[in-house]
């Protein structure tokens, strides 16, 4: 196992932010750690990267214990945190050479590795420009490159695509896929279902520091069920009629009075949509909006935990 954690626990003062996390990640796979803000994802990453001591449980990375063998862990680990943790004033190449030297590569070796990474992440043109002139996507790529200086066997990615545009997001995904194909184990935290869908072969869903669900993305999607159909009516008085129309094609329905909205989970998407639109039209109910969509992360957590997500 590239990463193995058992009963990992961490408190801040009175709050338990990580409560008994079990995790195992195989080499050459991406394991998604999914959860809202404050679920404990970053805390888990910080413990696995030896930045934070656990208050309970044990964890090993690349076969080394993160507490008692932290020096060996750091030799096999790449960390890409939420900030672009690079020197803003120096150029991209200088940054990578510095991190290479600090990872105890020889000076020539560090330069060579920096050039390799700059090429791999398409940063050669900007290599000698100050990082402060980089775009968000370029910074992210440089940050990712900095985490790969030592060609780590385990890579920890903490929300690597937060704040990136779709293009930048795809670039990061491609880089991650290439690494995994080369045998690297990746632990990826994210708030996006789609990201897990794209990359991960296994997912652990965290909520309030506890494991709410785990399995393959497909199994997870099956368990959180079907698409949602939202109907927004113009007149609040029409809500009961709209609900009746939805009940005919769906199991659960839920009414949101303020939003004049009825939401239903549906299995047969097209049939449900046609039926609802026709029924409402026949009844002469004025509809402001009809939306057919995937469940939101909030709904996933509602489903998995039976409690609504707290604002973090």
């Amino acid at each position, binding site marked *: 196992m590239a990463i193995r954690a058992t009963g990992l626990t961490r408190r801040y003062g009175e709050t338990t932010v990580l409560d008994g996390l079990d995790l195992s990640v195989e080499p050459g796979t991406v394991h998604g750690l999914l959860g809202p803000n404050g679920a404990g994802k970053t805390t888990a990453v910080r413990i696995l990267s030896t*930045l934070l001591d656990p208050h309970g449980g044990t964890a090993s990375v690349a076969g080394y214990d993160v507490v008692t063998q932290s020096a060996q862990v750091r030799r096999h680990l790449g960390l890409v*945190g939420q900030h672009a*943790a690079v020197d803003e*004033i120096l150029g991209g190449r200088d940054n990578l050479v510095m991190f290479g030297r600090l990872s*105890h590569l020889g000076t020539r070796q560090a330069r060579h590795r920096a050039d390799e990474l700059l090429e791999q992440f398409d940063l050669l043109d900007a290599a000698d420009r100050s990082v402060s002139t980089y775009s968000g996507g370029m910074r992210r790529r440089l940050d990712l490159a900095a985490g790969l200086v030592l060609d780590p066997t385990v890579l920890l990615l903490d929300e690597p695509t937060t704040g990136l545009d779709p293009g930048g997001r795809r670039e990061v995904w491609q880089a991650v896929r290439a690494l995994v194909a080369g045998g690297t184990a990746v632990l990826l935290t994210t708030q996006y279902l789609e990201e897990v869908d794209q990359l991960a072969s296994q997912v652990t869903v965290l909520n309030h520091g506890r494991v709410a669900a785990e399995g393959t993305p497909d199994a997870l999607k099956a368990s959180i069920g079907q698409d949602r159909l939202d109907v927004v009516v113009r007149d609040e008085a029409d809500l009961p009629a709209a609900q009746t129309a939805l009940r005919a094609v769906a199991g659960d329905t839920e009414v949101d009075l303020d939003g004049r909205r009825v939401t239903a989970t549906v299995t047969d998407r097209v049939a449900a949509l046609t039926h609802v639109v026709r029924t409402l039209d026949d009844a002469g109910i004025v509809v402001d909006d009809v939306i057919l969509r995937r469940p939101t992360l909030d709904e996933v957590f509602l489903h998995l935990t039976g409690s609504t997500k707290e604002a973090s």
Partner: protein
Amino acid sequence: MTWALRDSWTVTLRDLGHWRRQPWDVLIGLAFPILLLLMFGFLLGGAIDVPGGYIEFLFPGMLAVTMAFGLESTMTAVSQDVQRGVTDRFRSLPMSRGAVLLGRSTADMLASVVGLAVLLVAGLVIGWRIHEGIGNALAAVALLLLLRFAFLWVGIYLGLVFRGQGGVMAVQILVWPFVFLSNAFVPISTMPGWLETLSAWNPVTATVAATRELFGNPTVAASGWASENVVLLAVVWPVVLSAVFATLAVRRWAHLGR
């Protein structure tokens, strides 16, 4: 040990790289104490009557004040690295454990040596002179750098403790009354009694008085044990401050993961 030194030097080189990238920042940093020197020397100095001339009196004070202000730049650099996650990246690398702090202190000391040299030249240009020979002058420079070293560790510790922008700003403001509560700009005998006592024990006062003696610049006699043992205090104060704050900073660093 060799890794510790090599890693520290790599961290130091990072700061030297900043100088090359942002020469204007360096120049502004060098110009600021010269500006203060000119303001106090020529705008306010005319109204301050000190035997031997105000420029000669003021200049050693200005040198020590510049060393004390170094606390701000050290603290800012340390707290920015913590905020931006650079400290976390360093801590996740297989580098030597003490290298970040050692490299930071080396870089800041180098910057201070350069800053001090520039300021000494500026002083000579506006009429300040060394009267007691080069040996004593070098001893004075050593005392000034010792003071910088002490405030460097205060800065590292504060930077690790107060991570927000607010903490840095508060220190930037509080450093002013701290350096003015000394003999750097005026003789402390002109202050109200309790302020005079407080100022007499300020580490900045000890260094200023000792460097005035060593450079042969005018001193204004003050009474009390602290004022009669300035050279001793100019050594003991920085050594004690360095020992206390380096210990605190290293402990804080080692316990960042707790």
